Each structure stands twice: as structure tokens, then as C-alpha cells.
């Protein structure tokens, strides 16, 4: 076999692998959403489940999910963003930065069921919160903390040093520079991180099952046990209660994830560094160091882009 045929065959094979990957995505999404979409009606969304979920809708699990996410974000966002600020703006000891970063990153590698065990042992039993929105939300907060810290850190690091220096040169304290210059500049990145972490928390099942319980009632306050959408889907499917409701619940989950993804993409389109590797596909806006610092304020127009390319 000569090199050209070999080349063509190999490209075909790797292309096929990518096509199958996408086909799998479409199969799973459509496999759940196609049978489920028809059952999603306002009454499904806004009535609570009856007879174990066989009848009625998903109002209670939907409300429980929102409450759980609210508690998780309310706790994790300040702590996570604070940690990121401390690491990037204040802390000077390199080893301590490395240590704290390592600790939060390790948290990201912990399996969700272990978070569940921890939440159960600490929040449910030790702190006597029982199966409740509090326990579940705090457990979720721990789970999403690493994402928030990492994305906020990246966002703060991406702020051009000139912003920092300029603010300080004008006599601002570090706190003023931070709240008036750095945080606003880094905000899209930080918000994206929060949204992505919500995406993870929406679908979390094991940890929520162990800490918030699976009571089907509408949670009236944060001390009530609650069943999230994901847990609801698990119970409907695993106990064979109602396939139809399970499809519809799964579809709602998928829609939520798609929305979260779209929102995150819209908020921040991070130029993926190191993607332009072939000289002929280079774009000046994301490649040359010179233009990097100005992308914040002025994007090169298509015309200037082609002019730039012609000059090279």
C-alpha cells in the first residue's frame, strides 16, 4: 500500500470515529427527548407528582432542584471566588498557592458517591440536619467548589496586568482595584464557571440521593427533605414506576443541560489557546502576542485581519 492510499484510509477511519462519537450523542439525546417531548406540557411542569410519580407532573422535583442549586451556589460561589482572588491577587508564597490549588483540584477528582457519604456522615447525621435541602445543597456546594475556583482563577489571570497596575497607580487600594477593575473585567469568565458548575449539579444524583433523600413532597423550607429531578428520574426508571414520566423527566434534564451549555458558551467564548497550529490557519486576534492585549478593547475587523494576514 503506498503512502497516499494509507493516508486516505487512515483519515477515513479517524473521521469515522469522530462521526460515531457524534452519532452516539445524537442517539442518546434523541432516544430520550423524542419519546419525552410529547409529554412535556405546562401541566406536567407545574403539577406535583401523584401516586409515586405514576401520575401528575414534576413541580416538586423541579422546585427541589432549584432550591438545591440555590443553596449550593450561594455557598460555593462566595467561597470559591474568594479563594480564587486570594490565590491570584493576594497570596505571594508560591508553595502555598500550589498547595491550595492542589487541594481544590483533588476535590474535583473525588467520586460523587464519596461526597454523598461525607454529606451523609456530616450534614445528615453529625449536624442533625437530616435528609434536607440544606444537607444536599451543602454537599453539592463542595462538589462544585473546584470548578468555581479554577474558572475564577483563570478569569482573573486573564485580566491584562495593565488594569491592575493602572488602578494602583491611580491610588486605588488593592481592594478597590479588585472590586472596580479586576472583578468586572473577569466577570464573564467567573459567571461561566458558575453556570458550568450548575450544569454539573443539576444532573448529580448519587450524592443528592444520600443527602437530600427522595421524599416526593413539595419542600416548604430548606429543612425539608427533597427529591431532585435527577433522583426522580432514577427512581421512576429503576423501580419501573412510569416509563412515560421517566422519558419526560429525562427530556427536561437534557433541555436544562442544553440551556446551561448555550448560556455558558454565549457568556464567554474563550479563545482556545494553542489551537492554531498551522501557519496558514492562523488568525492574528488569538495568536500574536502584540494583539492579545488589545482584544479586550478592540477586536480586529475582518478587513484588518486579512490585511494582517497579507503582511505576513
Amino acid at each position: 500500500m503506498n503512502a497516499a492510499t494509507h493516508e486516505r484510509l487512515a483519515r477515513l477511519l479517524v473521521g469515522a470515529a469522530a462521526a460515531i462519537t457524534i452519532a452516539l450523542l445524537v442517539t442518546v439525546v434523541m432516544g430520550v427527548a423524542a419519546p419525552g417531548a410529547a409529554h412535556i406540557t405546562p401541566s406536567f411542569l407545574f403539577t406535583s407528582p401523584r401516586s409515586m410519580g405514576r401520575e401528575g407532573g414534576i413541580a416538586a422535583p423541579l422546585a427541589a432542584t432549584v432550591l438545591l442549586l440555590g443553596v449550593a451556589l450561594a455557598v460555593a460561589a462566595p467561597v470559591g471566588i474568594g479563594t480564587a482572588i486570594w490565590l491570584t491577587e493576594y497570596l505571594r508564597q508560591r508553595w502555598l498557592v500550589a498547595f491550595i490549588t492542589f487541594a481544590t483540584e483533588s476535590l474535583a477528582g473525588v467520586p460523587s458517591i464519596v461526597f454523598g457519604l461525607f454529606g451523609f456522615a456530616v450534614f445528615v447525621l453529625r449536624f442533625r440536619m437530616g435528609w434536607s435541602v440544606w444537607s444536599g445543597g451543602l454537599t453539592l456546594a463542595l462538589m462544585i467548589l473546584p470548578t468555581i475556583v479554577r474558572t475564577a482563577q483563570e478569569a482573573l489571570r486573564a485580566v491584562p496586568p495593565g488594569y491592575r497596575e493602572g488602578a494602583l497607580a491611580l491610588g486605588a487600594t488593592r481592594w478597590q482595584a479588585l472590586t472596580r477593575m479586576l472583578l468586572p473585567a473577569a466577570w464573564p469568565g467567573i459567571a461561566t464557571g458558575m453556570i458550568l458548575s450548575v450544569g454539573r449539579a443539576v444532573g448529580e444524583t448519587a450524592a443528592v440521593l444520600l443527602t437530600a433523600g427522595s421524599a416526593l413532597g413539595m419542600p416548604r423550607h430548606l429543612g425539608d427533605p427533597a427529591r431532585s429531578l435527577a433522583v426522580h428520574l432514577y427512581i421512576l426508571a429503576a423501580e419501573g414506576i412510569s416509563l412515560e414520566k421517566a422519558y419526560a423527566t429525562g427530556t427536561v434534564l437534557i433541555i436544562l443541560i442544553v440551556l446551561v451549555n448555550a448560556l455558558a458558551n454565549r457568556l464567554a467564548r474563550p479563545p482556545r489557546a494553542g489551537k492554531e497550529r498551522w501557519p496558514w490557519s492562523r488568525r492574528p486576534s488569538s495568536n500574536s502576542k502584540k494583539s492579545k492585549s488589545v482584544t479586550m478593547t478592540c477586536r480586529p475587523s475582518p478587513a484588518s485581519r486579512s490585511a494582517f494576514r497579507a503582511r505576513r
Partner: protein
Amino acid sequence: MAAVEPRASQSSGRGARHAEVVAKILLAASATLAAGGILVITLFVAASGWPLLQQTGWWAFVSGRVWSPGTGVFGILPMIAGSVLVTLGALVFGCGLGLPAAIYLAEFAPRRLAGAVRQGVQLLAGIPSVVYGFYALTVLVPLIRRVSSGSGYSVLTGGIVLGVMILPTVVSLSEDAIAGVPAEHRLGALALGATRWQTMVRVLLPAARSGLVAAIILAAGRAVGETMAVIMVTGNVARFPSSLFDPVRTLTGNIALEMAYAAGEHQEALFATGLVLFLFTMSLNLLARAAGRRKRPG
């Protein structure tokens, strides 16, 4: 840096300095909290499982072949085997498909198409595991039941589902690893007259090896820790499987299934299971870190 701080205007000077101190304390406190999380989790899970491990002994717990909470016999070897087998299946499936897909995305795909595929993969990563589990339960389990003599709840089913679930990890991390190879390598190989495929196989993949290994190990870590999709399709029988079509129970499944009603010794045994699982995933993550950090030759 410190020298510029106190020069705020007269009127807001004191307030600003107070704010500075308070802010510092709050920020340090939140960092302590975030860093302490992993320690507290390790300690609590370990402490909760410790009494049982003391009583039965580490080795007996890990190598015991019988799990019988009713009679107080706790051995998790079948569950360890279950986790390992299902993870291996996932790696075969996920890497067999994910690595070539990553190669395509990194080097051969048209730019627009690559962008679209990346978005799709990102979405694939975001879909909750319980949705994968549900889909597999309704489609894959009956399919496997038809082609085999078993119930359809099996090692193979679990492996396939987990393989699909780790695809995004494998694809995006491997693509990053290949993309991270310096352009000189690529250009040099092409200048020497290699085709792009030859460049990929002889230059880029060897150069990206450490990153690829790290990607695969991280994916394995995710597969070991996955819970919901696995318990929905593997059948959860705490016995050694004798074929790919036999049901198994994983470490994660063991905890998730029995925690709700466990008490006393039984509950301690589940925490001990969690500790073993935790050590498993931690060592995989550390291994991936070590592999990823290794310098490329050249």
C-alpha cells in the same frame, strides 16, 4: 506592591484600609475552607469506616469474597473486581473510539466541523449520568439480553455505557495533548516529506504520549467513580462474574444501593467501601498528574 496601597484620598482613606483588612481576612478564610474540604472529607470517611476495618482487618475486608451484611461478613473483593472489569470495558470502548476521534479533531477536521464536534462533545459531557443510565436501561439492556443468554444486566452493558460517558474526557484531553505538541515538530516532519498521517503516527503521537496517558488514566478515574449509570445497568449482584454477560456490582453501586437502610456495622462497612474507592480514584488522579507532568523528549 505594598508601597502603593495607603495612598487613597483623605476622606476614604481609613474606610478603604479597613475594607482592605476585612477583605483579606475573609478571602484567606474562604481559601482555608476550600483547601480544607478535601482533608475533612478524607478524615470523615476514613474515621467512619475505621472501626470496622480495625475489627475485620484491612486485608480480610479487601480480599474477602463474601459480602453478607445480614450475617456480618464483609468482603469487597467481588466489588473491586466489578469496578475494575467495568472500567476496563469502558477504557476499551472509550479509548478505541475517543483516541481516533481526537486525532481527527486535532489534525484532520476542517476548522468549522471541528468546532461543531467539540461543542457536541462538550454537550455529551454535560448530560447527567442518570440520563445515560436510563437510556441504556431502556435500549441497551434489552439489546444485550437478546444477543446473550443472560438478563442483559452485565459487565458488558456497564462497560459500554461507561465507555460512552468517558468519551468526552478522552476526546478533549487527548486532543489537547496532541495540540500541545510544538509546531516545529509538525513542520519539521512535513518538511522532510512525511505525509500528515505519517507525521501524526511517528511524530505527534509519540511526542504527546505523556498527555495521552494522563487522559486515559483520568478517564479511568472517572469510570471507577461513576455511580448512577452503573447501578442501573449492571445488575448489582455481589458475586464474581464468570463471563462478560454476567451481572456485577461495583464499589460505587455497593454504597449507593445499601446506604439508605444500613446501620451500625453495616454502615461502617459501606464507609470503608467508600474509603477503598476514594484511595482508588485518588491514586489514579495522582498517577495521571505524574504522567501529565513528565517532560516531552526533545
